[in-house]
């Protein structure tokens, strides 16, 4: 037996922290960290949906797998872009205007 309140609260907190991280950080890499937190919060939510009742086509298991993979792909591109930007701008400060 498990209460669903727990996962929901954790998910909400993680997403909130992620939003905060995205907004507060000036370092582009650390913005990524915030995004990862939002994603992990969402994962908790997704998984919780499948933990108690069978979701259609096991979506609550499959979708997290997709999300993790997409996120990995994104991170790869993101880091490449960040490195390029660093190469050209000399910094990855998000506040730096063009």
């Amino acid at each position, binding site marked *: *037996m*498990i*209460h669903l*309140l*727990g*996962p929901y*609260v954790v*998910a*909400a*907190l*993680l*997403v*909130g*922290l*992620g*939003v*905060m*991280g995205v*907004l*507060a*950080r*000036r*370092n582009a*890499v*650390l913005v990524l*960290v915030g995004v*990862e*937190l939002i994603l*992990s919060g969402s*994962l*908790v*939510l997704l*998984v919780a949906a*499948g*933990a*108690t*009742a*069978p979701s259609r*086509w*096991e979506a*609550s*298991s*499959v979708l*997290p*797998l*997709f999300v*993790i*993979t*997409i*996120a*990995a*792909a994104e*991170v*790869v*591109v993101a*880091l*490449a872009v*960040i490195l390029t930007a*660093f190469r050209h701008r000399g*910094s990855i400060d998000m506040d730096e205007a063009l």
Partner: protein
Amino acid sequence: MTSLDLAFAACGLLAVVAGLLAVTTRQVVHAALWLVVALLGVAGCLLVLGHELVALVLVLVYVGAVVVLVLFALMLTRAPIGPDLAHAAPVWRQAAAAVAGAATTALLLAALVPVAGSAVERREISNQAVATELFGTWVWPFEALSVLLLAALIAALAISRGRAGEDT
């Protein structure tokens, strides 16, 4: 309050506290490391919820690959080992970010809590079933995912190699 609840609470607490530190710490490398902790906490949560496969993938992909990449990126962009003063955001902005985060949390809680209901039986999820669905029903997006990965690979390669001077 069941034992599962307790276990979940522990993992969740770990994840949240680590997440908080990850978004607030001044030391960029620490932020990445705290992220690892937070992700481990999340993985624990997933385990408690019965999704071993997802938890495993999370740990493998995120902790094993993503965070390492992040660390590399931090190094390559010459992040200081100590507190990163160059990228310190002003206090008002941190406060605003905190407010935005809190608002998001509140919004989500306001929507989620009413549907939480009472304790329910945890469902056993068989990896067999997941695999069947993944390669049965979900085969089409799964293939699309592979294309995405390929494209991302090429993209990352192209970006990091660059092409000097020329423009389209």
